[in-house]
């Protein structure tokens, strides 16, 4: 009885290994289907999670953003305007392209550290750090030729004829000098920091 049992076990294990070594077409297909579904679920989940971190709700879930920059932004044209188009935080601060978005998200992980250490946890701390933070973002925007602004705007598609005199003149000069949006539009959605120098303005 015991011999038979051990033989059966050997047959079974040998059979499993053999089956794994030479899987049937059905099991291969099954595995592929399961892998595909898991892949979709993982990718979908990952993307959903990433998109969740791109929403305004997520961005202002921290009081640091909600009480400072968000309140300033709410008074600007990117929040409310005659056409009803709104640019939320991520539209300006997170690249749309997947690769650059991933890089930006990884960089943004340091903001979690900032949250933990409370580096801008009070209005006073925020003001003290505003210039440094703004300069970092201005440098990023300039380095990519104001890519996020250009997702919606471009000098080439601007009809300066219908702009106000001052805007027309400034945009014509910008085009002539190959400038980028952020060169002039610092403070377009948030209060300009105190202590800016001439270097901050070109």
């Amino acid at each position, binding site marked *: 009885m015991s011999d038979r049992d051990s033989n059966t076990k050997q047959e079974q294990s040998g059979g499993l290994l053999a089956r794994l070594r030479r899987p049937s077409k059905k099991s291969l297909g099954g595995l592929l289907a399961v892998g595909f579904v898991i892949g979709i679920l993982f990718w979908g989940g990952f993307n959903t999670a990433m998109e969740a971190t791109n929403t305004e709700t997520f961005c202002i879930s921290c009081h640091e953003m909600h009480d400072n920059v968000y309140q300033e932004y709410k008074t600007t044209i990117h929040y409310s305007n005659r056409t009803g188009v709104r640019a939320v935080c991520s539209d300006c601060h997170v690249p749309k392209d997947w690769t650059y978005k991933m890089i930006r998200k990884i960089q943004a992980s340091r903001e979690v550290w900032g949250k933990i250490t409370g580096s801008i946890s009070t209005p006073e701390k925020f003001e003290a750090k505003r210039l440094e933070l703004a300069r970092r973002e201005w440098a990023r925007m300039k380095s990519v030729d104001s890519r996020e602004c250009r997702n919606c705007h471009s000098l080439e598609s601007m009809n300066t004829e219908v702009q106000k005199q*001052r805007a027309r003149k400034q945009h014509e000069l910008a085009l002539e000098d190959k400038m980028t949006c952020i060169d002039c539009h610092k403070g377009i959605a948030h209060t300009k920091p105190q202590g800016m120098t001439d270097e901050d303005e*070109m």
Partner: protein
Amino acid sequence: MKKTMIAGAVGALLAFGAGGAFAAAPDWGKVDAKEITLFYPGVSPLEWIQKGTEHGGARALRKGETCADCHSDETADMGKKIASGQKLEPNPIPGKAPFIPVTVQAAHDGENLYLRFSWKQPAASGAPKMDDANPVKIAFMLESGGKVELADQSGCWATCHQDSRTMPGADDAKKKYVKGGSLADGKFYDLYQWRSGENKGFNGHVADSRVMEGGAALVSAEGKQDGDAWSVVFTRKLAGGEGDVTLEAGKSYNFGFAIHNDNSAGRYHHVSLGYKLGIDADGDVKAAKH
């Protein structure tokens, strides 16, 4: 006979002389009019307009653009923003007129330049009077050849500094001036003013400091108020003495003007951007021979 001839000659001379002074004044109804809107500038001196962190147009200014190139269409809006204290005015005066549209006309007769300013009196603010004697003062300045730094671009701003009286924290004795101001080098603004209370014209200049007297070009400055309509006519010789800009046909000059309305003084005036006055020449305001 002799007496008659002498009397006739004297009469003719007097008539000619009188004609030179009065008969040449133009028929203003036939002179082209230019609308220029003065605005309340708050604290926006020469130093401010050149500061890129404060004034978005500082870069354009460095590139040679004029203030009017960007702002001539929006002076009324600028005045509203500043007079309300939204920008550039630490001490907003409730009810202060944000802007004053003015009609400017100019003509000359080969000897004199005639400048006429007319505008509607804005509502009084009811604020304490800064200049008790004069409800209204109007002044214009001329500069020749852009010898004063930024005169070609900024008009009167080249005389307006953050350390001049009535600016925040400034010395009360410090008046307008231009950088490197010197009559000998031609680095100055020729200044004319009419004061309503005193009913008097002044002809001075702004070089290293502002002086209200000393000019030899002003012939007359006459103003009148008809209801709420003001009109002031300056007559000045095209030629002039020290501290006067000599005006020549075929040339344009830097030109700006300002009104102290509502018994105001110092920086609490309404100002124009910098414009060009052409004497038989191109300009924002053209003085043609009549």
